[in-house]
């Protein structure tokens, strides 16, 4: 019944049963969010620290709201303006926070493996052996709760993930959302196709049981749902593509291309959107788009993750 993992570091270590459990629990929390009083007392005695060493709007607010809806005590920490600037290491920062009796750490960090590193080190310190870690995005590695909320939104729309055709369009190379989505969707029996300029598709990605395309129209024609990723503007100068204008012309999703398709498809986006680059306004705000449903489902999915991780009987990891 409980999850097979003590921490949520990524989708890769989760079993199909774990994913099913999280999505099913999220469905019940989705109902809680419809109630006049959207709060349950489950995490009354739990303190959660949100440690954001990297900028975030949606994920941070979504986690904070999920924690508050579960009645947890919440503290927020952001890298800028903290003792990190004075040279303190991340591990020292976290251990100091845990010494104040914090039960769960939600961490976002620009470096790959930050959450996994924390989880492996925490168990060595007597004050923090029971603390649990939830990864809210680590560099270009994983963003498990985003993949879970994407899967939840797809399941809500299509009823099942089995044999669903999902396209992921954009910068696959630098995207933790893409990687977590690929792990999750293939584990749950969906078919995944990634689409983007060759410079933004990692070599050997076929080994993850995904297909590759460089043609947007063919990709959209093939899929039931397309997850459009943000073009990270900071990458533009790195020479992966000549210009944003050219990217938008070849890989930008717009109303015209959607009208050409033989069947309607669902459009998703993890946010933040660069309107006019990877997706146009008439497409992002159309009835094809479930972008705002994803945001609401994100709160329910994060409530489920917190509930299942915090409720796991106290065992020392490792």
């Amino acid at each position: 019944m409980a999850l097979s993992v003590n921490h949520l570091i990524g989708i890769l270590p989760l079993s199909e049963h774990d994913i099913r459990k999280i999505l099913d629990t999220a469905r019940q929390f989705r109902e809680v969010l419809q109630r006049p009083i959207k709060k349950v007392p489950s995490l009354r005695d739990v303190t959660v620290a949100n440690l954001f060493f990297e900028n975030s709007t949606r994920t941070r607010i979504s986690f904070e709201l999920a924690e508050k809806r579960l009645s947890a005590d919440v503290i927020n920490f952001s890298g800028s303006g903290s003792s990190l600037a004075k040279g303190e290491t991340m591990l020292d920062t976290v251990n100091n926070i845990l010494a104040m009796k914090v039960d769960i750490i939600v961490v976002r960090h620009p470096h790959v493996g930050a959450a996994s590193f924390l989880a492996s080190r925490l168990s060595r310190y007597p004050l923090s052996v029971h603390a649990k870690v939830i990864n809210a995005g680590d560099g270009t590695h994983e963003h498990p709760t985003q993949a879970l909320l994407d899967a939840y939104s797809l399941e809500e729309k299509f009823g099942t993930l089995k044999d669903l055709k999902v396209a992921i369009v954009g910068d696959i190379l630098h995207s933790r959302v893409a990687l977590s989505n690929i792990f999750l969707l293939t584990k749950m029996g969906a078919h995944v196709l990634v689409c983007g300029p060759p410079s933004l598709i990692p070599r050997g990605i076929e080994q993850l049981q995904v297909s590759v395309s460089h043609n947007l129209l063919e990709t959209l024609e093939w899929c039931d749902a397309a997850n459009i990723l943000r073009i990270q503007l900071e990458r533009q100068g790195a020479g992966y593509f000549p210009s944003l204008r050219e990217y938008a012309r070849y890989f930008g999703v717009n109303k015209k291309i959607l009208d050409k398709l033989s069947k309607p498809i669902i459009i998703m986006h993890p946010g933040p959107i660069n309107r006019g680059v990877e997706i146009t306004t008439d497409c992002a705000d159309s009835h094809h788009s479930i972008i705002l449903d994803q945001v609401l489902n994100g709160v329910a999915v994060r409530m489920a993750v917190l509930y299942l991780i915090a409720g796991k009987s106290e065992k020392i990891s490792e």
Partner: protein
Amino acid sequence: MNKKIIISEERMKILLERLCLLFMERHERPEEVAVIALQPRGLPFGKAWIHVLSKFCHNLLPDFGYLDITFHRDDYRKREELTTPSDTHIPFLVENRPILLLDDVLYTGRTVRAGLDAILSYGRPASVELMVLVERRFSRELPIEANYVGERVDALSSQKVRVLWEPHPRVILFNQNET
């Protein structure tokens, strides 16, 4: 000890009818009441009870919904295993309505306490009554009693009382390690 039938199918029919009559005796306008069954085991009882009630009330039935109380339990993080949440469906307003809570067995009273807590998330009911098919006597851990009781039974704390609906309705008693 083997599983022992303590309430037979025939007796269940009588109990369900009696619970309907007791309810109608107290509520002249049953359609004003909202019935909420506590998940998971209160739901089959609720359905069976409403079915019998429909023979007496015809088209003036109470509204019927079901409520899962998992997130309001007082033993979260205290048990080895997490309880699996079930569906909740309350397709009516609770605010200012008389509510009838339904569950199959009243034992420690903790489920009902969680149910009372959960209902308040939907609004402030005018009143809340409790109906149970089976009440286990002398085993309450909280000051909670039912307004309508099908049958009162005595069982040891090492024993379980389970209401079964398939293939035919009956109530059984068995030792806890014989699940």
